[in-house]
């Protein structure tokens, strides 16, 4: 064999070897790919197998979830019910608070009125206190304080506000709204439609509050006109009327008795001084 033929043979051998090597590599790659795919397939088959097995587990889980949801819904309903109950209680507390505040307010007015009425034994000061209570706590613009003349059935005005005392007429016990209230010992309200103006211009009383001591009439407070901003009478006003009817009368009576006794005491003291000189 010639050299050329030898070289040619060697070249042909290398080419075949290269082909075989490439083929081997390709085959190796194919085999590796095959192994990988087999592995993945087995994993998929495994998962498929597992999924197929958890249908009942899914049902069980679904049942558990539904139960849990029902339980949570029940708890939610219970909490909402509690919340509604608490809201209801809060509303009741708020309403009660408003009531208590109003009651406290009323008691403050009544306490002050009572305190002031019994804070003095000077008859003129007592009348002054009555005027202040009727102006400041009731809200009257024109009114008069009447007392029964001793031994008569006449009501004489002794103090007033908004009009001079002389503008208030003498009244008779038992006659008219005022006389009736004094006789019966009850607060009498006037006609709501009446003008309620000053007596000097023919105004009619808006309210008459009889003053009584031990069920004995001693006088009356007669309101002819309320302050502009006063719409009407409230529960507090009724309480003040009741307080005035008793306590104002007692205060007037007690202060007059005290004044009389003071005068008598001075007179007696004067006699004693004369006798002992």
């Amino acid at each position, binding site marked *: 064999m010639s050299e050329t033929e030898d070289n040619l043979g060697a070249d042909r051998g290398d080419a075949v070897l290269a082909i075989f090597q490439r083929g081997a590599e390709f085959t190796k790659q194919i085999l590796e790919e095959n192994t990988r795919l087999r592995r993945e397939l087995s994993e998929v088959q495994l998962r498929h197998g597992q999924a197929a097995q958890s249908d009942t587990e899914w049902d069980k889980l679904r049942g558990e979830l539904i139960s849990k949801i029902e339980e949570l819904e029940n708890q939610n309903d219970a909490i909402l019910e509690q919340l509604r109950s608490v809201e209801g209680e809060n509303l009741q507390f708020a309403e009660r608070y408003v009531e208590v505040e109003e009651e406290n307010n009323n008691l403050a007015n009544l306490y002050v009125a009572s*305190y002031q009425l019994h804070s003095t034994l000077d008859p003129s000061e007592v009348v002054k206190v009555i005027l*202040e209570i009727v102006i400041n706590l009731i809200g009257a613009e024109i009114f008069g304080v009447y007392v029964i003349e001793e031994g008569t059935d006449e009501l004489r005005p002794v103090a007033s506000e908004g009009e001079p005392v002389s503008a208030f007429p003498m009244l008779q016990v038992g006659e008219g709204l005022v006389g009736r209230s004094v006789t019966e010992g009850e607060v009498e309200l006037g006609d709501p439609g009446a003008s309620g103006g000053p007596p000097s211009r023919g105004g009619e009383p808006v309210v008459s509050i009889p003053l009584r001591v031990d069920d004995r009439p001693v006088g009356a407070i007669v309101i002819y006109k309320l302050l502009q901003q006063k719409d009407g009478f409230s529960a507090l006003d009724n309480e003040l009327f009741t307080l005035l009817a008793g306590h104002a009368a007692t205060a007037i009576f007690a202060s007059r008795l005290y004044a009389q006794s003071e005068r008598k005491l001075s007179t007696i003291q004067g006699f004693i001084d004369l006798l002992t000189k």
Partner: protein
Amino acid sequence: MAGQRILIVEDSPTMRQLLVFALKRMKGVDIVEAQDGMDGLRKVTSDHFDLAFVDINMPVMDGLKLISLIRGEQNLAQMPICVITTEGAKEDRERAISLGANEYLTKPIQANKVLAVAKALLKLEG
């Protein structure tokens, strides 16, 4: 709230007592009373107050005169003043406000309203 000083200028003892009764519900307040405008002026110019309740109709010096004098004092120009009056007309309210009053209460007075006004003017909560 501690240390708040309130001046009440009112000639009626009944009203003064009611105002004190209402304001004493605020803890820690110190309340000083004056019997008329002149007495009120003496007190307000000689001592510090955080708030004043002033009646309009008073002897010696009425409330509107007192308010105008108070507002004339530089160090008292900002002191809150609540006017108390029997007059409910809008014009009267506007007149009091124009003279320098911050708030306005009409008689008959309610203790809870006095308290509400005091807290508002003293900028207190609750």
